[in-house]
């Protein structure tokens, strides 16, 4: 069934088709419609799930953790201040190996109070041990939710599905909503081997001495390393059933490109338009949109970018005192390589300032004009 829906509702439909059993959430702009629709679905019986109203995002995640530990498939959604309030429990989810799936709408962190998009909220959660997917269309959002349940439940690692505020969350697009029966075929019920049950009482997450803690973290990293190939094989299985493939990255004219943009989220789709314009001007540009930020797909990114003469990383985020965060990561992917193209780091669009095709043209011209970056950070669109 094809429907015109907003990005937030694509998350809701994904959770519905994934047959989430427990949903606990607290509303926050620009995430509200995600849980609004899910609560309606729970109320009218479309979705047989327990909807738990809570008093904060910290509690929302706590409720999801308890339910997940008891063996339920769980879903929640939040944004910015809500996500950062959850921070402690994000570690509990990954450290406790509980495959919660969560939508996060990228919204700039206060102060100044903002409801508009940038990525500092989710990228601040980089080291919490969650898988992070950055989406650029409503179809991709829906398809990612369904696949994220599969990926998360295989290795017991939680997933965060990330949408830009408004440019995706509130943008209406045509979305193919798959048949429930076909989704059921792709995504069987969650049946963890170990769970909280009165038949087999255990204490979970209790005091873990230095004799054992280190190995638990080693195992989390080892499983995280298995996630990139799993995302690819899961994507192919999904493609066989639904005809759409989502991998670790999305390439657009990268094959013969002299200049490759590295983007994420909806900036990735704007960049495709910019690439088209540049190609019309005879500039061989391409776009590599990073879809999976954690685990970071080092090998894939290296193999694509090493073909380019120049690389321009576009960050809608900043690590204060360092660089744009995607820029750091892309540079680290080339450490120890014999040769690599010059890598330029651009910061733009913080706090929801528009990133337009002309912003990206400006980036392209800068990267083509200079042999290497003239500054640590090249700012685009800031009034200095």
């Amino acid at each position, binding site marked *: 069934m094809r429907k015109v829906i907003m990005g937030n509702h694509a998350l809701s439909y994904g959770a519905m088709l994934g047959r989430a059993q427990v949903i606990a959430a607290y509303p926050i702009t620009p995430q509200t419609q995600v849980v609004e629709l899910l609560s309606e679905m729970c109320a009218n019986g479309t979705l047989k799930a327990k909807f738990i109203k809570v008093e904060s995002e910290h509690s929302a995640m706590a409720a999801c953790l308890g339910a997940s530990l008891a063996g339920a498939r769980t879903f929640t959604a939040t944004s910015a201040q809500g996500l950062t309030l959850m921070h402690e429990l994000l570690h509990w989810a990954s*450290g*406790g*190996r*509980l495959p919660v799936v969560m939508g996060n709408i990228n919204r700039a962190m206060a102060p100044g109070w903002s409801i508009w998009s940038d990525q500092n909220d989710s990228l601040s959660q980089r080291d919490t041990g969650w898988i992070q997917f950055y989406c650029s269309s409503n179809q991709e959002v829906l398809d990612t939710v369904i696949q994220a349940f599969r990926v998360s439940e295989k290795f*017991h690692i939680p997933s965060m599905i990330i949408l830009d505020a408004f440019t995706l969350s509130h943008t209406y697009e045509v979305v193919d909503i798959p048949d429930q029966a076909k989704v059921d075929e792709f995504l069987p019920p969650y049946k963890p081997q*170990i769970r909280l049950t009165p038949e087999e009482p*255990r*204490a*979970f*997450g*209790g005091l*873990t001495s230095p*004799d*054992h*803690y280190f*190995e*638990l973290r*080693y*195992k989390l990293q*080892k499983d995280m390393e298995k996630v990139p190939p799993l995302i690819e094989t899961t994507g192919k299985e999904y493609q066989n059933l639904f005809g759409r493939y989502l991998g670790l990255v999305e390439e657009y004219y990268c094959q013969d490109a002299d200049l490759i943009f590295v983007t994420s989220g909806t900036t990735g789709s704007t960049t495709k338009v910019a690439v088209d314009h540049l190609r019309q001007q005879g500039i061989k540009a391409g776009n590599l949109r990073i879809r999976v930020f954690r685990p970071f797909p080092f090998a894939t990114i290296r193999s694509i970018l090493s073909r380019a003469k120049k690389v321009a990383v576009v960050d809608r985020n900043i690590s204060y005192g360092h660089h744009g965060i995607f820029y750091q990561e892309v540079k680290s992917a080339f450490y120890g390589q014999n040769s690599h193209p010059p890598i330029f780091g651009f910061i733009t669009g913080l706090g929801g300032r528009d990133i337009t095709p002309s912003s990206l043209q400006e980036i392209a011209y800068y990267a083509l004009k200079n042999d290497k970056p003239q500054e640590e950070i090249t700012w685009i669109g800031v009034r200095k």
Partner: protein
Amino acid sequence: MKDKKSAKKIVLKSAKEFPLMPMSVGSMLFNKTGAWRNIRPVIDLSQCIQCGICWKFCPDVAIFIDKEFPVVNYDYCKGCGICAEECPVKCIIMVEEEK
């Protein structure tokens, strides 16, 4: 007091032996948390009215009732003093442990 079986400290040898999730692998039979105690409750049974309030309030389930009177299990009592605080006839006093 029930006889406690002896239990050994468990140290897993390789990550492969570990459960996926952080969860209890050993036993509280080994992990005697009474060692954390700085002050110990001492009950004057001659004053005790057998109300069971100390038994009910003990957060570590370290008080059990034997022949209708409370007995403290010092293997697990952490010395929090809640029993002494709640005792309606104040027949439980907290005594400094000798180090």
